[in-house]
């Protein structure tokens, strides 16, 4: 029997549900022939008692002589499987049990493959009652922030990057902003030290200091935005995405989206610790629903909201936050970049100092970059500035002890 690698999970792209394959399972993987009745490794598992069917959400992304890459676009999962497994899956274009497709001998040997396909949501239980609401939560993004790895369930990281490309509250063309920021962030690649595989961080030449050494980062892709749905449905999806990706100690770095993304994120944070919100913005005329200060105050765990002009001095911030320990930092990119270019405006060093001052006095438990308008002539500069401010804010959250 010729055994070829059938599943190559090292090739998995940004995915929310990909788990490492157990070594013994990988070793058992063989190529299933056209009928699925030969070349199957033995594992002794019992067949499943329900019918299975191909997920409606799968697409074939690529194909070569030996393998195909199949993705579930709703779940953000991708798997590279052998042509044999691909042909085997064709049997489930309509609901069938495994033992209706394979002999009893082959069925038990094929079960590891079948379970993997179910795990990845490429096959689904056709006999399960339909969910009350089918919520498509996240999608893969074209790039990952700083080329950090995709988030893997069960592997907590210090920071989780989540794009929320929602721009329907304000007159902001921001749905491509997460993609832009991620693309610009590739100039600041996330790397591990050769000796100990610890993240090496970066060097901030403006502050003459190393930052984020040892900080782990993962990218969870984008929250799926279903244009035409209600705002409540969108908020529900954001909350699920945050719960899936930012549980435990991870600090979310949210890439908006218009400024309403701040409200959606705060309302959906899984860990509802009391916190204060700092909005770094030069736009003091904002009155849109879901971005206004009053609306943020309605969120149960938000105790204070401070709107900080980019020209502000660090002194007095703590008083404005009512002594709160936990701070969620929202950075309005469009107005911050405009402020940088204004007569008597702040320098990038001033902005960085402001952010690090907040981090020195408070625990930053969440960060967002919002308001980047792709119609601005300086949108690319806003994307680059966003990367610099995001890394600075992450440093303010992570390097607090070192500072």
């Amino acid at each position, binding site marked *: 029997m010729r055994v070829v690698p059938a599943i190559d999970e090292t090739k998995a792209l940004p995915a929310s549900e990909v788990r490492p394959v157990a070594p013994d399972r990988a070793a058992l993987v063989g190529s299933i022939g056209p009928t699925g009745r030969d070349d199957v490794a033995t594992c002794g598992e019992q067949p499943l008692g329900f019918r299975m069917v191909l997920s409606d959400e799968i697409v074939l992304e690529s194909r070569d002589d030996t393998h195909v890459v199949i993705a579930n676009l709703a779940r953000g999962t991708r798997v590279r499987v052998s042509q044999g497994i691909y042909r085997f899956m064709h049997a489930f274009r309509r609901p069938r049990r495994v033992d209706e497709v394979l002999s009893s001998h082959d069925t038990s040997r094929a079960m590891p493959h079948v379970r993997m396909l179910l795990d990845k949501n490429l096959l689904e239980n056709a006999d399960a009652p339909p969910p009350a609401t089918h919520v498509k939560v996240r999608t893969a993004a074209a790039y990952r922030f700083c080329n950090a790895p995709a988030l893997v369930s069960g592997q907590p990281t210090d920071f989780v990057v989540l794009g929320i490309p929602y721009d329907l509250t304000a007159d902001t063309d921001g749905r491509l902003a997460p993609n832009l920021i991620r693309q610009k962030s590739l*100039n*600041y*690649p996330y*790397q591990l030290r050769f000796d100990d595989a610890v993240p*090496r961080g*970066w*060097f*901030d*030449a*403006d*502050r*003459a200091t*190393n*930052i984020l050494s040892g900080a782990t980062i993962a990218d969870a892709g984008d929250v799926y935005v279903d244009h035409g749905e209600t705002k409540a449905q969108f908020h529900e999806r954001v909350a699920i995405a945050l719960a899936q990706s930012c549980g435990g100690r991870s600090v979310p770095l949210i890439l908006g989206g218009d400024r309403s993304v701040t409200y959606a994120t705060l309302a959906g944070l899984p860990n509802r610790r009391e916190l204060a919100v700092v909005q770094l913005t030069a736009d003091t005329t904002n009155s849109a629903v879901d971005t206004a200060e009053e609306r943020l105050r309605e969120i149960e765990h938000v105790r204070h909201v401070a709107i900080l002009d980019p020209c502000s001095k660090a002194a007095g911030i703590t008083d404005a936050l009512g002594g709160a320990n936990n701070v969620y930092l929202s950075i309005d990119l469009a107005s911050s970049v405009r402020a*940088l*270019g204004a007569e008597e405006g702040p*320098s*990038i*060093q001033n902005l960085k100092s402001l952010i690090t001052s907040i981090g020195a006095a408070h625990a930053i438990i969440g960060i967002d970059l919002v308001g980047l308008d792709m119609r601005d*002539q*300086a949108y*690319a*500069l806003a994307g*680059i*500035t966003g*990367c*610099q401010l995001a*890394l*600075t804010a992450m440093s303010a959250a992570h390097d607090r002890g070192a500072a």
Partner: protein
Amino acid sequence: MMGDNTRHLTGLFRWTDPRGMAPEAGGLCVLGAPTDHGNVVLRGAAQGPAAIRHASGALDPPRNSGWDIGDIDRSDSPDPQPYMDRIGDATRLVRGLGLVPLLLGGDHSITYAPVSALSAERDLRVIWLDAHTDFSPWSEQSHHNHKQVLRRISTLPGVGGIVQIGYRGITIGDERRLGDGTRVVTSASARLMSGEDLVAIVPDDLPCYISIDIDVIDPVHAPGTSTPVPGGLSPEALAAFLRLLVRHREVVGIDLTEVNPILDSGTTATVAAGLVAAVADHWDHQKSLLIGCAARTRIRSDEPAPLPSPGIAID
């Protein structure tokens, strides 16, 4: 060289072609290098020379006039090294006329060619004005791109030192120490220094080659470039430094790169033309410096600068 494919461009500040003339030795001579094949981010810097020349038309002509020999042709899309060879030959052509090359890029990878040609003639120090150190490692020895051009230049035997001014932002590692003979002045430091302070850190033991990546300027003032980084110098501060540099240090060549007119509406090209004007305004000081510095500067070769080989296409 001046074959049938010669195109007559309107020169920078309406300066004219020196060939066939009898130019006074030591004047500035513009060479355009319209290429962006070394820019890993965006196309568009190839339009820089034309945009800077166009923008110069709206400025007052500088106090000292110069020459403009035209663009080094890349319309036949040669590979990077053959084009570098052309730039090197054109640099030697300008030197053969007794003039000082002023290259308008083009992406920053072009700088390797004039520095290579000039440092073969005399030892020199490179003044690198840039938001980036351009010291990325290269994976293949034959690559010419704008991310590693200074690392490549640092290996030239005639480069006796490097002063990098303008490094800023967040980078993978600490790039303030690039090796022996190299001094890095971050933008944060440079912004706190006067022009005199900056000139003082440039030793006067070697002539200078000045290489300006327009992204050394803050993107608020010069947004038309492919890799802007917030926190740069003001055009006024850089112009003041350049004026002092040409008054107090011997300069054997200059380039100005990475102006990408696709990304703005002429602002950056105007800033670039203004920087060239600042240099040209004070260029007459170079004559006295030439006399003073000649005794101190080791001449690498007594041979005259080689003439360019026939067939070099200079429009």
